[in-house]
């Protein structure tokens, strides 16, 4: 069991960091070119030249394209109606139809955005080039410039990795602790413990400490991998991350122990822990932004320890936030932890 506890999370980290990304790599396009003009061909070659798109097939009917879409051979269809080139030449609005497979809504949104970007880029070339006579530089009337603070290249690894670290620590904290006391109930060792004069809090603290250590170790390995293998900027203080992790682990271990004391079999404990785990993770802002959730969901997140931890670890690692910046979240987590542990100790019964 022990090697599994240590090795699994590391493998998980390595797989998830590369797999869980929003970067689009390979979108297969089916192009229906009824126009066959130089303009349509130019736009098609722009798609072909982009690293994100592969033009799988060219055809002349939308039906044929849709068939490919049904077979899941392509992700999107691009349709040039007859007269596209003509419209471009006459500087009239020219239409390109885009049909996107939206089974996966978030992927569809991304295809769409990428296709838009390519078409936008093509548009720029079509505009009459106003050239400043003096400097011979093209004049741009309104230019928007932007920069992404704390993650300039909008890289997904620095964004995902801290979140996945949180996930690992949560798995250790919640699952192992939820299984623990109930396991002793199942194999009967609790009988022998209950007749000893050991105090409830002593017993539960004894249960907490090993998981705290394992959680810390896992976090440490994760942070090492993050800085040296994935080269993620680590701006904040390590001590603060550990402080946050400590408080967070108290909350999760408290919840885990509470589950463990309230259930009779490992199966029940597993099921309940899994339920909380999924709700916590899905609502935490790891995969979808908290801001896009409905109002009640955001309010519910007040009780979600994972969302506090993800927020804080991202702030500390990527932004270099200090103690004062995370004080509010840390305070809430602290109170949460104390509450959970107190309930767990109180609900644990040595006498039935």
């Amino acid at each position, binding site marked *: 069991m022990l090697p599994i506890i240590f090795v699994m999370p590391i493998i998980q980290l390595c797989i998830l960091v590369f797999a869980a990304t929003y970067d689009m790599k390979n979108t297969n396009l089916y192009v229906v070119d009824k126009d066959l003009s130089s303009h349509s061909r130019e736009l098609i070659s722009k798609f072909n030249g982009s690293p994100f798109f592969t033009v799988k097939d060219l055809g002349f009917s939308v039906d044929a394209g849709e068939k490919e879409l049904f077979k899941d051979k392509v992700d999107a269809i691009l349709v040039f109606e007859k007269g596209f080139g003509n419209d471009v030449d006459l500087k009239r609005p020219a239409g390109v139809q885009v049909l996107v497979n939206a089974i996966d809504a978030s992927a569809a949104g991304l295809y769409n955005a990428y296709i838009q970007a390519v078409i936008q880029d093509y548009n720029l070339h079509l505009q009459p080039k106003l050239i400043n006579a003096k400097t011979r530089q093209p004049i741009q009337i309104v230019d928007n410039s932007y920069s992404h603070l704390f993650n300039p290249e909008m890289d997904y690894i620095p964004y995902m990795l801290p979140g996945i670290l949180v996930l690992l620590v949560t798995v250790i904290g919640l699952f192992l602790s939820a299984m623990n006391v109930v396991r002793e109930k199942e194999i*009967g060792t609790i009988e022998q413990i209950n007749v000893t*004069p050991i105090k409830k809090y002593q017993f539960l603290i004894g249960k907490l400490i090993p998981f705290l250590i394992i959680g810390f170790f896992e976090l440490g390995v994760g942070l090492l991998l993050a800085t040296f293998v994935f080269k993620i900027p680590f701006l904040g203080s390590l001590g603060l991350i550990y402080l946050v992790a400590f408080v967070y682990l108290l909350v999760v271990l408290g919840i885990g122990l509470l589950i463990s004391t309230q259930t009779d079999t490992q199966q029940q404990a597993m099921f309940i822990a899994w339920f909380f785990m999924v709700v916590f993770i899905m609502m935490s802002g790891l995969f979808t932004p908290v801001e896009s959730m409905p109002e009640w969901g955001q309010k519910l997140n007040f009780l979600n320890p994972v969302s506090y931890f993800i927020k804080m670890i991202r702030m500390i690692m990527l932004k270099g936030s200090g103690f004062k910046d995370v004080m509010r979240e840390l305070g809430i987590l602290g109170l949460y932890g104390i509450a959970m542990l107190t309930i767990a100790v109180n609900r644990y019964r040595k006498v039935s």
Partner: protein
Amino acid sequence: MDSHISIENLSKSYGEVLALQGVSLEIKSGELFGLIGPDGAGKTTLFRILTTLLLPNTGNVSLCGYEVVKDYKYIRNLLGYMPGRFSLYQDLSVMENLNFFATVFNTRIEDNMDMIHDIWVQIEPFKDRLAGKLSGGMKQKLALCCALIHQPKILLLDEPTTGVDAVSRSEFWQMLKGLKAKGITIVVATPYMDEANLCERVALIQDGKILQVDTPAGIVNQYEKDLYAIHTSDMYQAMLDIREYPSVHSVFAFGQVLHYTDKRDAFEVAELKEYLVNKGHEGVKIEKIQAVIEDCFMALSQENKLEQ
């Protein structure tokens, strides 16, 4: 120190099921006491109340003069408990288990070696083996060591010999006799009637009621009827036939023979033999025998059922 156990009018129910109904018992200090009854008689429930793990519905229980409900914390220091199921940590070694329980009781192995020495020498060769990898008899000895490590005044053993081979069983009882000599009050629950003779006094328990409390000899002496052992070629058919016999009082299968009692005081063996031969049984042998605890238990439990 006085380490008697007194149980007064104890009742416990699980929902509709009455596990214990008005049980009263006095167990003297330093006694080796047996609690004998079939599975489901209420032995484990009684033990769980004695070990402060279960709260009774009504009645008072005191150990060494301390109430189980009120002074449970103090009582836990005085108790050694060995549950029926092996409940030490299987993934710790023998030594680690012993060390752990010594620490939990805030003591050290060395300070209590005299208490467990006789048993410890038997498992010492395996002290680095994982507890889960021990044989049944060895597990039992380790569990006993762990239950004794804090020098308890009272030792409660719940079916300690269930699933243990005959040699280990008799060894185990030898060890209990040794412990009794050290002045510990020992209560053993067991479904094996033959172990009753090894106790000083026994209580026969069934359906949550105490049927009788006495010395093993006393219980056997109370058996008033004449008991006969019947041997035939077809035991099962013979039992069915004897049940039809007009003056039958009781008949039970008992190993290879049937134990029979008659309603009348003046019973002629030849009469029954003739009846069986007429029914077509071969090799019929009937002899008068001395009753054992099991016969007493069967008789008492039948009376108990008739009362209900």
